[in-house]
């Protein structure tokens, strides 16, 4: 049984940078590297890719990440835990074997399965968000349960260097190696709570080292361009020390940690995961050196009887168009353009929106009153189940060049299919995680 283990977090979302993960693996003296790459909607989009191609549906950056990381992981005997399997962990594992072969390396991968519960849905289940039957939202495309530590532990019990999962709760990616290495009883709610606190602090990678934090006026952070990602050293008593590799940019202190501790937390006394209901209110943070933070406290209650399931559905299309105005009467000309579009096509859509970027697109009219920007960008967005109709949004905005106010420049148009996500709860006895091992 280990006294302490070191876990790095090299990615906090699907599009995260690769360089910090490479530096962590090379210089972080890590036992484990975690890459957290799945947001609520990411897995539904991955399910759609899998429908078009049965060999797709894992993280789109998996190939690039594994090519860069695999030699370093094997050299430093660091195990990788990642949810880059997304909607198709088996295809992801096969891709990793292919990459290993190309690099002349041998690797063993344990895949965690069982989060995909799409076949178990009737469509009559009521959503947590609107208390409406799932079928009423649109054609369902995916359903993935948030698995926890119990699903990951059997994979860690193998000697695989890579543990590849689909949907698991983000903090569980960190809590699982703690339970595995430090001899924790997963029914010990206090330790599950403490480990979940630490996992939650780590799961967004750069968001605890100065990313999503820096403000040059009130909260300056040094060397953001080489922002380092965090390392957690966790002890058997559930306490942790968070740091980063020397020489990397960024900042770790009580301020960065507090912002991350409460990030996306609905109730600090009841943070639901598959492993526990954690209580963050008694967490203590102490700066014990430059970019070195000691985390103690926090606790938990027994794990919930149900698991959250994210359900993806086809929600139609969003068409967007943008065009800019600058100089004298810029705001007036942009507003005229907005009115013209509203009158031409505004009533054709299920939802329609006119924004003035630089003025009121983010915080609305009331907070921007009295500000007079030099330039302003009109943005139009329309939503519909009819793809051809949503294409019209960008076309009409572009046509403002010759059919709208003076001096309109830089028109751009966008068209995106949208996958909506709602949630249900499923009894955990209905969900059966398994593992499958792949080896070169």
């Amino acid at each position, binding site marked *: 049984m280990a006294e302490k283990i070191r876990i790095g977090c090299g990615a906090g979302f699907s599009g995260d940078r690769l360089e910090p993960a490479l530096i962590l693996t090379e210089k972080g003296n890590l036992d484990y590297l975690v890459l957290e790459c799945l947001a609520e909607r990411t897995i539904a989009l991955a399910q759609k890719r899998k429908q078009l191609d049965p060999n797709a549906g894992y993280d789109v950056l998996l190939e690039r990440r594994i090519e860069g990381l695999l030699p370093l992981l094997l050299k430093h005997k660091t195990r990788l835990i990642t949810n880059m399997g997304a909607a198709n962990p088996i295809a992801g594992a096969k891709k990793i074997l292919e990459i290993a072969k190309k690099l002349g390396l041998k690797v063993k991968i344990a895949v965690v399965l069982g989060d995909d519960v799409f076949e178990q849905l009737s469509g009559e289940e009521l959503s947590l968000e609107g208390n409406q039957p799932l079928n009423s939202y649109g054609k369902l495309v995916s359903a993935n349960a948030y698995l926890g530590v119990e699903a990951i532990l059997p994979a860690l019990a193998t000697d695989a260097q890579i543990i590849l999962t689909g949907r698991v709760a983000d903090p569980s990616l960190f809590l699982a190696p703690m339970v595995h290495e430090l001899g924790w009883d997963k029914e010990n709610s206090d330790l599950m709570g403490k480990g979940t606190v630490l996992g939650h602090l780590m799961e967004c990678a750069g968001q605890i080292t100065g990313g999503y934090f820096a403000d040059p006026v009130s909260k300056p952070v040094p060397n953001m361009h080489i922002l380092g990602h965090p390392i957690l050293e966790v002890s058997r008593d559930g306490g942790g020390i968070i740091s980063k590799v020397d020489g990397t940019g960024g900042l770790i202190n009580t301020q960065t940690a507090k*912002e991350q501790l409460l990030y996306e937390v609905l109730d600090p006394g009841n943070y639901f995961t598959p492993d526990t209901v954690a209580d963050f*209110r008694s967490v*203590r943070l102490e700066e014990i050196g430059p970019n070195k933070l000691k985390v103690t406290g926090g606790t938990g209650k027994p794990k919930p009887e149900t698991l959250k399931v994210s359900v993806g559905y086809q929600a139609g299309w969003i068409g967007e168009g943008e065009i800019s105005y600058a100089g004298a009467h810029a705001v007036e000309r942009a507003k005229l353009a907005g009115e013209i579009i509203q009158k031409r096509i505004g009533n054709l859509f299920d939802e329609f*929106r006119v924004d003035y970027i630089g003025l009121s*697109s*983010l915080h609305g009219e009331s907070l921007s009153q009295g500000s007079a920007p030099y330039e302003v960008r009109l943005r139009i967005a329309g939503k519909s189940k009819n793809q051809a109709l949503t294409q019209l949004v960008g076309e009409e905005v572009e046509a403002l060049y010759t059919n709208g106010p003076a001096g309109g420049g830089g028109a751009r148009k966008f068209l995106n299919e*949208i996958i909506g*996500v709602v949630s249900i709860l499923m009894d955990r006895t209905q969900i059966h995680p398994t593992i499958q091992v792949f080896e070169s």
Partner: protein
Amino acid sequence: MSQKLADIAHSRAGDKGNTLVLSLFPLEEKNYELLVEKVTADKVKQHLAHQLKGSVIRHEIPELKALLFTCESALASGVTTSLAMDAHGKSLSYALLEMRI
């Protein structure tokens, strides 16, 4: 004398579906009580009225010198289907910090 929250506090925005979560911390711990007194749930709801269509619940966490506002029906329809520029509401921490106290 009125001042902006941005002068004495920092904040981070997070989202879960159509619920917006705003944390608020004093830049200097001595100002925590001032935030508790001035930045009530009602005040936040009023300040961000254009955005917040549901209830606002305030959690006080004295051990961390932190306030947390859980705002329901706050993100149009939520990140996956909203037409908003900032569908996550990630920029809304700075809307809160515009509040004058």
